[in-house]
């Protein structure tokens, strides 16, 4: 215990590392770590980055053996690290040695770039007293963000990858987002994680249900199972009412029309996938038919339209259960049915926004398109219609879909997900099968406890249901945030890097850097004291509220109308949702995007706001823009001047796109955009406040 306390007393510890690969001469690096937040795992990651190590390596530290002679001792765990640190005399370096082991085939640096399972490991929580005071910890982290940028630049690693991508969510990571009752805690961070790296395939089944807004807020694990069961029963009841007529031959005109359309399409949807392959009697093809027919029958205002089979197919592949796929499909279509309306308004709006984004980020390319009459961007129609599902190979499509879904703020049903259209009359509905939550007392108590664990005071009743405290839940506080990647998850490593300084080649440089460590931490202390940073405002929860997913009639409203809009009820069936968007200063300061196009200041305010952009899916617009921008050189240098040439060009790229490259840049641009929007809104708000003289 005293040992642990001793660790807490330590500030920065200087580290000197020698890397040996057995052949070449040893390479040295020097940096500092904060022992309170540096776990063994973090140290390993730091080292692998510092030396750009792709394979396995072992770490040892210099200690005195029993005879008092310095020898290298293996450093294999947090225990060893503690021992190494506690054995240091004041002001001495921690001396480490890194020995490379043969590089494994196919081990790519992807896997070691981001700390995935770290944030919530109990061990790191034990090590770090600050984890019980998340705010102070965070403050410190923000205040030194500048230093970190400098440091991370010095590190010879792919900064962009580290910031804008992570490996897919694993089982361990997933469990970290669930409390002991299996309730999803930190739903925003959860989405953010999926947004940055997608999900391991065998986890998709669980994660997709969560990000497709199938569940009302705050269900425990068992409650989710019960819910799915009840909903499945409901599904089969609805399905069987048309199935009975179908097999009796009592076909209504509508049923005949729909089954004809659907049959044609399921027979040619993803049939190259093993799941749907083989004869037309494949039972998965039949299940897809059932899902789509049931949806079309119970949603007369949408019915069936080509493209829907593309959206439902991955759901069935992942859920491997017809009813579950249907439930997810309803969750998805709640947002996406707009695309299939015959008025085409939603797609028109998306095209318009895509054009605006291109004009903003690449005016030259935009005017090229305008000059050549290609600025209608019709070759992007399918991209927007089925959210890029067709543009990628199936596995990649699963990935990009989940990334898109998780980019959207949670939109849980207030009570339960509707499996039929509002006002749809189903003769068989006896209402006896609807899902009811478990014991309300347990639910309430665990809710409030999770509210505390989030580290944010719960300010008000749920904005989603408007039902007051009973519904209030920590997640509703955050639940409508846009995902922004510079959060505790991706920046976990940056937190750990707080005091890190890595020297490059020569020794004089090293000395200078060593002195900068102390000055920058002093600097950070004084910056910490300043209350005016964007982040400290965030901590005091002076959140801005704007309505998300405005109905089309409100789209043309300007910034000055925002205060009105936030009190307007949404015309959509979905309840009024609120967006809180605050980004840490660190993101804004970062100079990572040196290569990114820098649009002119004046056009900033011309972009649609996040709640308008893409008619409910702003990130999709950024993905499409990225695909276009990544081809612009090829298009312009080959002087593709006509619509058909561009159409052919992009047709050739179908299922050949580089998913990783596209996602990386799209996330980057999207972050940039959200930041700009945030600061614009801040400006607007401060003006409004100045005018009101209320405070």
């Amino acid at each position, binding site marked *: 215990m005293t040992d642990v306390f001793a660790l807490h007393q330590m500030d920065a510890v200087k580290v000197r590392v020698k890397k040996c690969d057995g052949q070449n001469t040893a390479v040295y690096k020097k940096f500092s770590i904060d022992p309170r937040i540096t776990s063994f795992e973090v140290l390993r990651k730091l080292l692998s980055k510092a030396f750009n190590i792709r394979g396995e390596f072992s770490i040892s530290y210099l200690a005195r053996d029993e005879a008092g002679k310095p020898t290298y001792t293996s450093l294999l765990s947090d225990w060893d690290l503690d021992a190494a640190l506690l054995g240091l005399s004041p002001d001495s370096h921690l001396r480490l040695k890194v020995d490379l082991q043969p590089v494994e085939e196919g081990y790519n640096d992807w896997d070691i770039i981001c700390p995935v399972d770290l944030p919530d490991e109990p061990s790191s929580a034990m090590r770090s007293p600050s984890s019980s005071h998340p705010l102070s910890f965070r403050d410190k982290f923000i205040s030194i963000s500048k230093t970190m940028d400098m440091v991370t630049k010095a590190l010879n690693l792919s900064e962009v990858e580290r910031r804008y991508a992570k490996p897919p969510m694993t089982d361990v990571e997933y469990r970290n987002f669930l409390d002991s009752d299996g309730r999803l805690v930190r739903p925003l961070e959860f989405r953010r994680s999926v947004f940055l790296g997608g999900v391991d395939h065998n986890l998709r089944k669980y994660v997709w249900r969560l990000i497709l807004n199938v569940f009302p807020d705050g269900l425990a694990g068992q409650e989710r199972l019960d819910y799915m069961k009840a909903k499945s029963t409901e599904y089969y009841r609805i399905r069987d009412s048309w199935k009975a007529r179908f097999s009796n031959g009592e076909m209504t005109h509508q049923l005949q029309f729909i089954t004809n*359309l659907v049959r*044609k*399409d399921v*027979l*040619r*949807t*993803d*049939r*190259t996938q093993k799941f749907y392959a083989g004869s037309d009697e494949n039972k998965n093809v039949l299940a897809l038919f059932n899902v789509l027919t049931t949806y079309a029958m119970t949603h007369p205002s949408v019915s069936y*339209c*080509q*493209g829907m*089979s*593309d959206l439902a197919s991955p759901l069935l592949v992942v859920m491997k259960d017809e009813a579950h796929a249907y439930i997810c499909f309803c969750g998805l279509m709640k947002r996406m049915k707009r695309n*299939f309306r*015959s008025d*085409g308004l939603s797609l028109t709006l998306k095209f318009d926004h895509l054009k605006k984004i291109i004009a903003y980020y690449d005016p030259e390319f935009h005017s090229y398109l305008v000059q050549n009459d290609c600025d*209608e961007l*019709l*070759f992007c*129609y*399918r991209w927007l*219609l*089925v959210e890029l599902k*067709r543009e990628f190979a199936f596995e990649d499509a699963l990935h990009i879909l989940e990334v898109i879904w998780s980019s959207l703020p949670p939109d849980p049903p207030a009570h339960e997900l509707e499996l039929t259209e509002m006002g749809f009359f189903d003769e068989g509905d006896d209402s006896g099968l609807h899902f009811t939550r478990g014991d309300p007392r347990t639910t309430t108590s665990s809710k409030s406890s999770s509210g505390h664990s989030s580290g944010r005071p719960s300010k008000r009743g749920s904005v989603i249901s408007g039902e007051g405290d009973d519904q209030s839940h920590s997640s509703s506080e955050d639940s409508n945030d846009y995902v922004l990647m510079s959060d505790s998850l991706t920046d976990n490593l940056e937190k750990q890097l707080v005091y890190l300084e890595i020297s490059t080649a020569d020794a004089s440089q090293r000395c200078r850097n060593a002195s900068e460590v102390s000055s920058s931490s002093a600097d950070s202390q004084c910056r910490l004291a300043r209350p005016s940073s964007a982040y400290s405002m965030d901590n005091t929860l002076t959140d801005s509220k704007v309505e998300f997913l405005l109905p089309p009639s409100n789209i043309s409203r300007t910034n000055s109308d925002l205060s009105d809009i936030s009190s307007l009820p949404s015309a959509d069936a979905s309840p009024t949702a609120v967006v809180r968007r605050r980004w840490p200063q660190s993101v804004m300061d970062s100079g990572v995007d040196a290569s990114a196009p820098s649009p002119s200041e004046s056009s900033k305010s011309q972009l649609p706001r996040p709640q308008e952009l893409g008619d409910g899916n702003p990130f999709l617009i950024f993905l499409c823009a990225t695909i276009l921008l990544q081809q612009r050189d*090829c298009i312009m240098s*080959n*002087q*593709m*001047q006509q619509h*058909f*040439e561009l*159409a*052919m060009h992009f*047709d050739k790229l179908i299922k050949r796109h580089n998913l990783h490259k596209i996602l990386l840049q799209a996330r980057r641009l999207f972050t940039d955009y959200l930041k700009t929007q945030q600061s614009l809104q801040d400006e607007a708000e401060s003006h409004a406040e100045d005018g009101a003289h209320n405070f």
Partner: protein
Amino acid sequence: MAASAVASPRVHDFKVVLLGEGCVGKTSLVLRYVENKFNEKHESTLQASFLTKKLTIGNRRVNLSIWDTAGQERFHALGPIYYRDSNGAILTYDITDDDSFQKVKNWVKELKKMLGTDIMLTIIGNKTDLEKQRNVSVETAEQYAESVGATHFQTSAKLNRGVEEVFLDLSRRMIEQADKQDAEKRALSPSSRSTAAGNVVLLEETPAAPIKSGCC
């Protein structure tokens, strides 16, 4: 700029659009024609795609630019984008599906209204390999085609029956039409040949206008 259109072999650039209900076999027909491929489970078309084919008919060379459109009713609104300035349209139905034949009639009406008689029409009954399930009789279809000045063909993209003929016949008629329009224009203003329809270029006489560099 002295023009001698008499002896030069001519190149025609023709735009052809395929229209018709979803799943009648438009994509299959084009793929069969252009790449001689057939895929039983080819995915539905959600966005018009563009293919080209070159052919020589007598002393004429023809570059066909073919737009294969999305068939389902919901995409109907996009039709005009692809059929405007088309020289020819191929309207396809599935011989086993009477509804799809009705759709052909709707398209004919729309095209006549929007483009008049400038556009050459071909009506195709596809999937003749499914003769047993036929729902549209040959006589009805032929009569109808004649009544609207269209040619009628029966094809099977699956068995590659009649596909080549469709495009050959349509190309011939588009050449005739182009010649006719040329003659009319010459008659109107013999001196200003340059205002002739943009789809005729002289091979020998390359104008000084910028030539596109080869595409990737």
